């Protein structure tokens, strides 16, 4: 092969480039989204490298995989968190967890992910690599494959570093049928662990709040926890991860969709002391604060203790707790008995005065 031909030579399936990407000092440039060789190189050296799997390696504009007949679940989340790196995680792993969890909340087993990147011109490639590496690790931990993707670059000032939209595909096991409208009076309400960690970890970084905590985001995938739960109690009525809007949004949404009321008990809701303290001085309610590694389960009362035991036996559900009851209520109110003894409503979060949290 002549010298000049090296430029275009291939090494197995890998394309060869005359320069490797400058992953230490390089920046995202408009050309990385142009559809040309620079884009191909970014995809090859950054994304293919990190995510490599048989489906992605095909390098088609789509991935093709075999699924058994049955019910398939699809979920998507766009991630725009700021800052991109935070205690306990980054947008990379978060973008895997966020979608894996939405798939898992149907009781399904998540299998494949797609990832769409919207990068801002000037974003450091080194940071992008950290993000991509974190995604890869999160996918591996969750047992899912990132099989297809897309990369766009927007001009400086038209984006915010890196946005990631992931979509997940999963398969629902036989006998599982959950839904936000399947909750009935008499169900118990269970959370898988302490609330508010993610939102407080993010807020602690906000320029004009700046406080120090040892709280880390709880961002994690919950599909293994769900699999354990479903195995023992297949007839869970509903699962939901209380992300934006926190527990209050989740309870209110499901109350409306299932046309029920909810009664929860403040003393039973696990909240870490530092989260409580931060909420106290910021004037927030921990029930409104986002989580990224917790779930709320609604299950028949007679299965609640059994389910709780399974959850507590799992490392991602050690602090699980039964926090309340689903009740009949035409008005579909969510009420909370306070630690103080009174009863009050738990309304939807109102307003957005927080940093972007997912």
């Amino acid at each position, binding site marked *: 092969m002549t010298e000049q031909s090296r430029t275009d030579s291939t090494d197995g399936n890998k394309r060869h480039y005359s320069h490797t990407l400058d992953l230490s000092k390089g920046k995202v440039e408009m050309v990385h989204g142009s559809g040309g060789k620079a884009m191909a190189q970014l995809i090859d050296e950054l994304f293919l490298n990190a995510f490599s799997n048989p489906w992605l390696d095909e390098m088609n504009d789509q991935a093709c995989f075999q699924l058994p007949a049955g019910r398939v679940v699809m979920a998507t989340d766009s991630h725009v968190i700021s800052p991109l790196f935070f205690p306990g995680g980054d947008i990379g792993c978060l973008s895997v967890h966020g979608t894996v969890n939405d798939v898992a909340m149907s009781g399904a087993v998540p299998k494949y992910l797609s990832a769409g990147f919207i990068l801002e011109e000037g974003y450091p490639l080194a940071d992008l690599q950290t993000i991509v590496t974190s995604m890869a690790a999160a996918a591996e931990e969750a047992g899912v494959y990132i099989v297809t993707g897309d990369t766009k670059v927007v001009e400086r000032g038209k984006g915010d570093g890196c946005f990631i939209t992931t979509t997940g595909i999963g398969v629902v096991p036989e006998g599982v049928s959950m839904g936000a409208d399947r909750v009935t009076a008499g169900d118990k309400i269970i959370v898988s662990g302490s609330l508010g960690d993610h939102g407080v970890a993010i807020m602690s970084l906000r320029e004009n709040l*700046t406080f*120090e*905590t040892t709280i880390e985001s709880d961002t994690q995938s919950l599909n293994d926890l769900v699999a354990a739960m479903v195995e023992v109690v297949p007839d869970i009525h509903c699962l939901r991860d209380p992300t934006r809007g926190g527990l209050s949004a989740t309870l209110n949404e499901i109350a409306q969709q299932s046309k029920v009321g909810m009664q929860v008990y403040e003393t039973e809701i696990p909240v870490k*002391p530092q989260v409580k*303290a931060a909420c*106290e*001085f910021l*004037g927030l309610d921990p029930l409104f604060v986002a989580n990224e590694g917790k779930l709320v389960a609604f299950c028949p009362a007679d299965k609640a203790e059994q389910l709780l035991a399974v959850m507590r036996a799992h490392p991602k559900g050690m602090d699980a707790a039964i926090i309340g009851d689903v009740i009949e209520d035409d008005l579909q109110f969510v009420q909370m008995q306070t630690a103080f003894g009174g009863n009050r409503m738990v309304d939807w979060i109102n307003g957005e005065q927080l940093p972007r949290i997912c």
Partner: protein
Amino acid sequence: MCLAIPVRIEEILGDETAMADIGGVRKEINVALIADLAVGDFVIMHVGYALNKIDPDEAERTLALFAELDALSQQDIIEAAQ
């Protein structure tokens, strides 16, 4: 708006700032309004500023007031029951 919270002074950082502990959360606050501040003092913090010190004896006394009432009310109940 008048949201304020008792915080414990952990460290005095300068003329006007101190590190405060709020239930395990740490935050730098402005203490320019407080005279004779010492580590271990509790102050009421509002919008990042210490407004006043908390008097631990008075705090005890208020709790005792609740407790006294408690004792008193129990006595009432006993009297009423007689």
